[in-house]
């Protein structure tokens, strides 16, 4: 769906992005992970031409984005910002209706779609007439997501979408985000510096450093087949937790009563713990995990 081909971007003498290539399949959720200044946000913003690359090409649905009107292109790509970027002088309803208005949707169509999204995103209708600053941080971020999704764009770009939220709100929204079927159909590129978030939400992760991609692969690939010491070092601190969260029972080829084979070790532990005394099953789970780990 998205093909990024050897793009580079220089700001004066500084090379912010240096020959980055990757592809994102339709419906896939790709995470650009890295520390501040690694070039991940610059890479993201080149996809909707907020920043023009110094060299290299980007294709969306096999069409070079250079050949399209930037405004036209952007209207077909959802964009979610860290600080939500909601218009403070627009009500929630007006904020959500910006893109439909640009696309000349009918009022009825816009309203219908808006109500649909509100329900999915757990927003109350009474919020429609309020201004963004009257909402909580989590609600604002939901409105930001609704605004990006309203025109049902096939591609969604997200720049640290949960970065400004407190931990409790963040895990709650992340969970909702994962469960939202609206998002399962979308091709998503998300930028984050939060390793856990990357592993939780990403189908694939591209770890970046100094403008280059260090490793691109599934969460398990990064954990168990790190390309170099940088990757290993980057994940070191939270390695065990990440492993629990990324290894599925199906990966370990083990079956345990009361747990689905699609569950991760982490969620399996959670389920067992919450359903009475399952010491035996837990032991079985751990053994399988250590075996898998040492392979």
């Amino acid at each position, binding site marked *: 769906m998205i093909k990024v081909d050897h793009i580079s971007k220089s700001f004066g003498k500084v090379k912010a992005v240096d020959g980055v290539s990757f592809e994102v399949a339709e419906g896939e959720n790709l995470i650009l992970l890295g520390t501040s200044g690694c070039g991940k946000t610059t890479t993201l913003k080149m996809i909707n031409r907020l920043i023009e690359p110094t060299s290299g090409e980007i294709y969306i649905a096999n069409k070079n984005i250079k050949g399209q009107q930037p405004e036209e*292109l952007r209207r077909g790509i959802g964009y979610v*910002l860290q600080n939500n970027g909601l218009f403070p002088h627009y009500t929630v309803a007006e904020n959500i209706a910006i893109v439909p208005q640009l696309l000349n949707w009918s009022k009825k169509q816009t309203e219908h779609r808006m109500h649909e999204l509100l329900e999915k995103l757990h927003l109350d209708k009474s919020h429609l007439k309020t201004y963004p600053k009257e909402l909580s941080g989590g609600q604002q971020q939901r409105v930001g997501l609704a605004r990006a999704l309203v025109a049902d764009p096939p591609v969604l770009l997200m720049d640290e979408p949960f970065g400004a939220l407190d931990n409790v709100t963040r895990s709650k929204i992340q969970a909702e985000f994962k469960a939202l079927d609206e998002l399962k159909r979308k091709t998503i590129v998300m930028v984050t510096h939060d390793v856990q978030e990357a592993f939780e939400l990403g189908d694939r992760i591209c770890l970046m450093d100094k403008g280059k991609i260090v490793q691109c692969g599934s969460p398990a690939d990064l954990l168990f087949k790190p390309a170099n010491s940088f990757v290993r070092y980057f994940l070191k601190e939270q390695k065990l937790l990440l492993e629990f969260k990324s290894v599925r029972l199906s990966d370990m080829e083990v079956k345990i009563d009361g747990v689905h084979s699609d569950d991760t070790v982490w969620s399996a532990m959670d389920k067992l713990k919450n359903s009475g005394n399952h010491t035996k099953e837990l032991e079985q789970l751990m053994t399988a995990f250590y075996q898998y780990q040492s392979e």
Partner: protein
Amino acid sequence: MNEAQQSLFEFMRQQSDKLLMQTLQHIGLTFISLFLAVLVGLPLGILIARRVKLSGAVLAVAGILQTIPSIALLGFMIPVLGIGIKPAIVALLLYALLPIIRNTYTGITGVDAAVKEAAVAMGMSRKQILTKVELPLAMPVILAGIRTATVINVGVATLASYIAAGGLGEFIFGGISLNNTNMILAGAIPAALLAIIFDFGLSRVQHLKFKKLKSVTLALPFLLILLSSFYFIPSTYGSKLTAGFTPEFMGRQDGNLGLQSKYGLKINTIVISDAVMYKACYEKQLDVISGYSTDGRLKAYDLVVLDDDKHIFPPYYAAPVVREDALKKFPELEKILNLLAGEINDSTMTELNYRTDYLHESPEKVAKDFLIANNLWKSERAGNAGTVRIGSKIFGEQYILANMYSMLIKGYSDYGVSTKTGLGGTKIVFDALNNDQIDFYPEYTGTGLLAILQASPNTVNALSGDKDKTYKYVKTEFKKRYQMRWLQPIGFNNAYALMMRQKQASALRVKSISNLKTYLNN
């Protein structure tokens, strides 16, 4: 003096027509220029917010304009735009520009970067971003700039009366010239109220919620145009000629009031400062002006004095005023000072003033040339028999006279001379004489009568503008009250006078004020 006891309220009620007219003019001036300043400043502010490189230069120019003293700025405008509303509006516009440009720029560049990025990322065009995001969000800041500009304009618009553009300045500056507190307040209080009201109103608009702000912002241009039109509501009664009078002349019995009551003169009148009045008359923007009969510009601009055939202007004959004790100390002094008596008539004095004021010759040279031409000049003598101290007020004519007296004293006696010229106005130089800091200075009978002796209206009427009676009265009173003596008059009369261009006056066959009245009535 009755005027001073009259209450402010009475004055305002009496002058309510004028007050209303001036207030409307003031509002009009303020908002015409404000409207134009918004038309110019808003796009400029938007431009420099887009091209930040230009911002330094544009803001610097607007900043420099702001630092030019308002009177000077009005002065610069006269050669280009003449007098009246045009230069006043341009000057006010230039003052209003800086806050509007700067606040537009600050407002737009201050819009949250995330909001701007979101707007771009959603596919808004540049124009949509400007009109739907940047301008609405910058509006409170822009309105704050307009608010500042409005208050500045209400203040500066008082100066518009200097160049005949009307406004509340007519009362304020007229009142200052006439030392009439009621008149000053009648102009100053409404001006202050206007500033407060507009400031308050705009502050309310500025703090409105976004929804309401939008509709108010749309209504603002219409409101500005409506308020601007106030300037044109006051209609002046038309006449064939236009007169320009100083604020002081407007309010004096021996000025416009006398012209109206004694001559019944009805002429379309605008108020103007004497600094630009003569030139404006020369440039045919005015036809009749109130000037001083020996002013050098009379000759420079080829103007002619109309005969005051009903004697409303009191005589202002010049003569040296000397302390009695100085006359005793310097026995030869009286004779020497009287050498000039009757030697200089109006046209001669005008000629001499013309040479200093307009040709910029030194007063010393002008004085010496005159004495030589009239066989009065003698070379300097010893100068060791004590020092005579001469004073003068701070204008050309007085400098010339002081120089003449200095040369005469040195040439005809052994006295030394020290001159203290440039002693400001009447009050300063007279106090210096009264306190024995100078021995004499040239004074005018009218000034002695009205400014120093502060004669009652009855006394002034009794003297009925007669030059000898006036001279005798001040001479007697000065001797009695201050032990000072008026010596013989020099000959010229530097009084108020109505003037016209020579050519026009002879074409219309107007020689006196009565002729003028007859011409206007036909």
